[in-house]
């Protein structure tokens, strides 16, 4: 009777003994577990056209609005390719920073939204592997966004970011490091305060924007704000970008300060995340089945 029911339902059809699974030990850092979390996000993009378009939609919109505005401003001033380069370059680099930071926070939110958080954290994933996967996702997004924006900027505004070559690379990398730091801190806050804090995933980057001298030089800011600006790694990246676009040699001083301030930011981010994970394990936040 039981066998008949099982066959009818299709369940338990194969009564033959299951062969044992060949499984890795679980100890130590595992690139495969990092790949697993990355794959989980990549599946989402492969399956959803809307989600895939969203990666490029906002950056392209930004580029169009800021790009055409820069063209208009340049014409008002009687020309000036440098003005266009400053604004379009700043916009592209800003989007790199923003999208990487967002990729980290939103991939974590994805697990909260789908009630999958406990499944992930009862697997042998370590905190380092978890963060590594989200950071790599950010880099993959940057490659897609960066290439698309570079092509569009070249076609629409005759602004070829590759013309400036390697000198821009240290600033792009530093912006990615800054975004990792901010993304990790944002994720920690979402873990600590739940879905109520999810707006931070989109808002935190904009807290940096006014003080990072993204679209204007630091000298424009009032003196007290300039002091704040120079504590941010993003400021050195955007100031350095303007120097390179203006034809100056690579400002190594800015690169060095960007690295130092990013090291501090990433150190703080790691400490904050470790502390929040500890709190989460004390309060049962990883057992949450909703935000």
């Amino acid at each position, binding site marked *: 009777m039981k066998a008949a029911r099982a066959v009818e*339902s299709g369940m*338990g059809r194969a009564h033959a003994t299951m062969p044992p699974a060949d*499984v*890795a030990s679980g100890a130590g850092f595992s690139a495969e577990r990092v790949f697993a979390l990355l794959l989980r996000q990549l599946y989402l993009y492969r399956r959803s056209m809307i989600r895939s378009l969203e990666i490029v939609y906002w950056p392209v919109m930004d580029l169009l609005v800021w790009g055409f505005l820069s063209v208009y401003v340049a014409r008002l001033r009687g020309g000036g390719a440098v003005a266009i380069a400053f604004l379009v370059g700043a916009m592209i680099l800003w989007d790199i920073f923003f999208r990487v930071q967002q990729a980290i926070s939103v991939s974590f939110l994805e697990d909260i939204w789908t009630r999958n958080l406990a499944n992930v954290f009862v697997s*042998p*994933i370590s905190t380092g592997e978890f963060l590594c996967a989200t950071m790599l996702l950010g880099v993959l997004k940057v490659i897609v966004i960066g290439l698309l924006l570079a092509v569009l900027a070249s076609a629409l505004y005759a602004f070829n970011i590759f013309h400036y070559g390697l000198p821009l690379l240290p600033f792009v990398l530093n912006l990615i490091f800054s975004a990792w730091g901010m993304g990790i801190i944002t994720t920690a806050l979402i873990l600590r305060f739940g879905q109520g804090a999810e707006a931070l995933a989109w808002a935190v980057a904009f807290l940096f924007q006014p003080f990072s001298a993204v679209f204007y030089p630091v000298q424009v800011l009032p003196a007290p704000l300039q002091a704040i600006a120079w504590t941010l790694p993003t400021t050195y990246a955007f100031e350095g970008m303007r120097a390179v676009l203006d034809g100056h040699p690579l400002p190594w001083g800015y690169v060095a300060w960007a690295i130092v301030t990013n090291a501090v930011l990433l150190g703080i981010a790691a400490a904050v995340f470790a502390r929040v994970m500890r709190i989460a394990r004390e309060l049962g936040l990883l057992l949450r089945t909703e935000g």
Partner: protein
Amino acid sequence: MDHGTAAAAITVQHLSKRFGALVVVEDLSFSVAPGEIVGFLGPNGAGKTTTLGMLLGLLLPTRGRIHVLGLPMPEERQRILARVNFSSPYVALPGNLTVRENLTVFAHLYGVRHARQRIGALLERFGLSEMRDRPAGRLSSGESTRLGLVKALLNDPAILFLDEPTASLDPDAAERVRDTLREVRAERGVTIFYTSHNMQEVERLSDRILFLHQGRLIAEGPPGEVLRRFERDTLEHMFLDVARQGISAP
């Protein structure tokens, strides 16, 4: 009972968990032998989920010690979690990924070699082969529960932690899940530690029960023996008396 760590699948010694002034689990000690099916019972708020969370390393104990497969939790969290697994109807797999995509992700998380064959065999066994390309969010409750069990068996776990494995299933589907759990235990010698509010199920499935009330263990033993001790006919009667009157072991 001896709560030594040597041969036991799970050993819990003087475990307590407090959230501020609120005591959720108090001085809990028990052990589970390899291959045993143990039902973990108690009214809502008894501390079952909290205990399960501590066994899985999702929650840190305030006091006490846990050993799983002879290894201390949470110190050896990664090594333990590679050899156990968990399923709960309240913890979903991402509904926007297909059944196969979900299982592929978790196969990589657990380092399962030959994942494609393993996933195929488990889907076949649980009658989900036809659903492999369907988004997990479009499965019925019964299918979702079975998918959760497939995920939980991916790494051939030595211990299966299940939170209400038959909640929201109709009696037929629930019985099929119980049959499968018995088969898995018989074939692979898997230890099964599960919570349930279905007292008939607990009586039929468990080798032993642990009955928790207000964070304390009030009864432990084979279902029949516990019923005799409490002078009740069924676990359901015992459950109701504990929940409403807070009876304790005679």
